[in-house]
């Protein structure tokens, strides 16, 4: 059991989701040899796809249930340039969720150094009907469990701020 007085995240309070790890791919670089602006979105999407897979909401879910998590918004904050050969990792929080929406925030790192942050809002969509639909009960339970596990973790100061606003 964790000491309830500690502020360090423990197994009891949950920890950020950190499954993502891969090396920068050459096709993600621009003419300057740096990770292209748009490629940060690829990295964020790949990190979040692993979390969605953990919740049973990945590409396989689309096939089996005819429904999918559709990205409606993405907010990237660029922190540092990233170069070939660096190893990318992510630390992801479930910030908020309801019966059909999921809000994720990730800190992205290159060789352990902050490179960017990215926040996404996903909408659960019935792909055949082409409209939003409630999550199935088992997926809702998985989403709620991770949201609750992350509820006590420290949040970045920029959450809830629009482009250009400073914490």
């Amino acid at each position, binding site marked *: 059991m964790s000491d309830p007085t500690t502020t360090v995240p423990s197994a009891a309070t949950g920890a950020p989701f950190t499954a993502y790890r891969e090396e920068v791919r050459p096709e993600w670089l621009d003419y300057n040899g740096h990770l292209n602006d748009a490629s940060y979105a690829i990295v964020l999407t790949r990190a979040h796809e692993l979390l969605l897979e953990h919740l049973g909401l990945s590409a396989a879910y689309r096939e089996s249930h005819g429904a999918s998590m559709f990205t409606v*918004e*993405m907010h990237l904050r660029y922190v540092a340039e990233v170069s070939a050969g660096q190893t990318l990792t992510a630390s992801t929080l479930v910030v908020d969720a309801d019966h059909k929406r999921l809000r994720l925030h990730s800190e992205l790192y290159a060789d352990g150094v902050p490179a960017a942050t990215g926040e996404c809002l996903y909408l659960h969509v019935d792909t055949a009907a082409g409209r939003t639909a409630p999550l199935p009960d088992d997926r809702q339970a998985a989403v709620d469990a991770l949201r609750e596990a992350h509820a006590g973790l420290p949040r970045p100061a920029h959450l809830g701020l629009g482009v250009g606003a400073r914490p």
Partner: protein
Amino acid sequence: MSNEQASSGGRVTTPNEGRRADAWDDQAVIEAPLRLHQTVAPPEWMDYNDHMSESCFLLAFGDSADVFFRYIGIDEAYRAAGHSLYTSQTHLHHRQEVALGEPLVMTLQLLDHDRRRLHLYHEMRHGETGELVAMAEQLLVHVDTDAGRSSDLPGDLYAHVVAIRAAHAGLPTPAVVGHPIAIRHTR
């Protein structure tokens, strides 16, 4: 998911890469908003579900921004001389999915600026129906790349920015501008 991008020689390129910045014409009318770039969604932008993948919306907006940079005077030669415009933030909004071969038209509005920062708003519309497909709000910062910190735009480029902002002063501020991502709970 597909991560193939518009690539040449195995890296990200833009359609105008290597094209010299335009000479500024003081007499030319400045469009409001600017209409600098259009494209047709190519096969390499499609994901496993045959819809345009998220990062490729950023590529398309980035290509439009690249034309904007050349319009105000920023090209490879300018960057090689030690200054550049870096993207500080991008907030992307998706409204419609995009299928292979659909025509896309981008517009660009200069919302605000100071000596070293530009606040931009992009729209992507379907080239035939005019339907709004996606929007992006961006904050860009002019940097001294050798010193590794922000720096004021040089006088001539700043004058171009001021002229564009004057031309865009009458445009309404789009509703999504300034809004953070949020889930509005109804209970």
